[in-house]
């Protein structure tokens, strides 16, 4: 196998709560350089947990029980915490869900973008500042100098998300985890932010793991899709194929459940309860056979 062939490999990943309840069940996926993969599923399906496992920011009570995560060919869960942190910071970044809570309220915008570049990536301050200004310009912020000197509360939610996107792309990461980056925003702003992420992604060739519950977003931004249910991969396929020829009944139900603005008269069809019950029964069966990495 060529080294660095994939930007990200997640192999048979299992994470669990202290009581043994699994939140991810044998999840595998790969991300090629420059590829956008959407992770879809309902809330609680574990889609955010995959990104958090990669970035090393799982909640303190959740642990990886089994499986491998390779970032640019490097085994993350064999590293010491300090090495892991540095490796992740060198190659990956996060666009968070809620721009209102993701910026430190008592620090100006400028240092929040510049400091990691200087202190972690080892850039000179002038390089880092130039980079920050350039990126703020590229996320279509009109007066980057002024914004650098502003506090978060002086900016709107959409502006703050732009700032966070600029900060994520600033160190030229190979992988960006976008954790429902448009969910907390107004519908009108959502489209702009989505377009912006796609624009920058295409310019830089960064691979993106895009977590969302919105099949509409999936269609717009991704090349590959992983559909999750209860922490288990239901379907993994190229995006066009998922929409034209969904193999798994759950994927079909999910697409059918997506509301369409073009056709408001179409009746809303939720994922059938019988299907969910059936899926849960199968997962329970799996769990009975699962030994949690122990024999």
């Amino acid at each position: 196998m060529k080294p660095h062939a994939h930007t990200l490999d997640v192999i048979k990943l299992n994470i669990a709560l202290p009581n043994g309840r699994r939140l991810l069940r044998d999840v595998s996926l790969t991300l090629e350089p420059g590829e956008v993969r959407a992770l879809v599923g309902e809330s609680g399906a574990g889609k955010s947990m995959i990104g958090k496992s990669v970035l090393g920011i799982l909640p303190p009570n959740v642990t990886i029980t089994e499986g491998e995560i390779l970032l640019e060919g490097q085994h993350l869960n064999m590293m010491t915490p300090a090495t892991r942190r540095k490796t992740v910071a060198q190659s990956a970044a996060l666009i968070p869900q809620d721009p209102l809570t993701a910026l430190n309220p008592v620090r100006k915008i400028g240092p929040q973008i510049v400091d990691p570049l200087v202190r972690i990536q080892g850039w000179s301050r002038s390089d880092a500042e130039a980079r920050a200004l350039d990126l703020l310009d590229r996320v279509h912020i009109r007066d980057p100098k002024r914004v650098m000197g502003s506090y978060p509360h002086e900016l709107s939610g959409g502006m703050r998300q732009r700032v966070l996107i600029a900060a994520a792309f600033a160190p030229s990461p190979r992988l960006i985890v976008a954790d429902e980056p448009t969910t907390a925003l107004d519908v009108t702003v959502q489209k702009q932010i989505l377009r912006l992420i796609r624009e920058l992604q295409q310019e830089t060739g960064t691979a993106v793991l895009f977590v969302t519950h919105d099949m509409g977003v999936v269609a717009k931004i991704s090349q590959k899709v992983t559909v999750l249910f209860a922490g288990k991969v239901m379907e993994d396929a190229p995006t066009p194929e998922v929409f034209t020829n969904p193999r798994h009944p759950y994927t079909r139900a999910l697409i059918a459940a997506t509301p369409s603005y073009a056709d408001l008269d179409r009746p809303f069809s939720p994922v059938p309860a019988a299907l969910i019950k059936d899926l849960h029964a199968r997962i329970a069966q799996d769990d009975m056979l699962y030994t949690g990495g122990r024999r």
Partner: protein
Amino acid sequence: MLLKTVLTRLATTLVTLFGVAVVVFTLVRVAPGNPIAMMLPPGATEEDIANLTRLYGFDKSLPEQFAIWLSGVVQGDFGTSITLRQPVMELVLGRLPATLELSIMALVIAVTLGGLVAVIGARKRGTGTEVGLDLTNGAVLSVPDFLWGLIFVLLFGVLWPVLSISGRVDPRLDIDFTSNFYVIEGLLRGRFDVVGSTLSHMLMPAMSLALPLAAMIAQLLKQSLKEVLHLDYTTLARVRGFSETAVILREALRNAALPTLTLVGVQFTFLIGGTVIVERIFAYEGLGNMAIDAVINRDLPLIQGIVILFAALFIVINLLVDLSYTLLNPRLRHG
């Protein structure tokens, strides 16, 4: 806008001080204990008593006495101490530096110690170290300042006599300072012998005052830090490669400091109140020690002067706390 704030503040300050003056003036006169009786030797005649009572104006009605005293106060004259026979203003201002230096040193110790324990506790959250620190905090907090004073006297005055247990400075030192701020003026003049001696006298009373406050700061600040460390911007800092300690110091501390600042402001006034008894234990020549003597001797003008000064001090401290809010929190700077 700013002018209006300042004027409002000034007005409320004056009203508060007037209220304090009325209360303390009435209280010391209504409470049992006669200052005249304290001054005269046993066997004094009725006439002597009457003369002295007239001399100090105690024969007049309460409102009259208050009016006379207040008219002096607005001109900066707080009367004359009955026992020490010196102007109250002079006495009180002479002792104020000692108490200020002691309380500020206690505050510095409390904030440093409490802050350090809070940061370590937050860094080691969820481990045995945190539990250990919590238990120690609880124990330290449950021992009051004067008891710490006695413990320190026993430890460092008797069992291992390294610190001076009484007074403010070595009396053999020749001090020709213009102010009574021994530490500050000593530093400015380069008289490090005076600074050293004053600090070694101050250490135990300052620690006694500081420890309970330090425990409170440690507990509250750690709690706030732990809350902030769940927030998205701290998570983002971790993703960007900052170590947990860096995340606490750079991202969390300033945000978590606000509730602690309120506590420190309120508790600092209690700490100054605590100097009364702690200064007594260490025979430290400050305001608190003087206050106890004044109360024992029914030295009414002196009691009034000290209480008014304490009140003014509390108001100034609260003002400083309010101002530091705006420094820490940019959201308060507008509007």
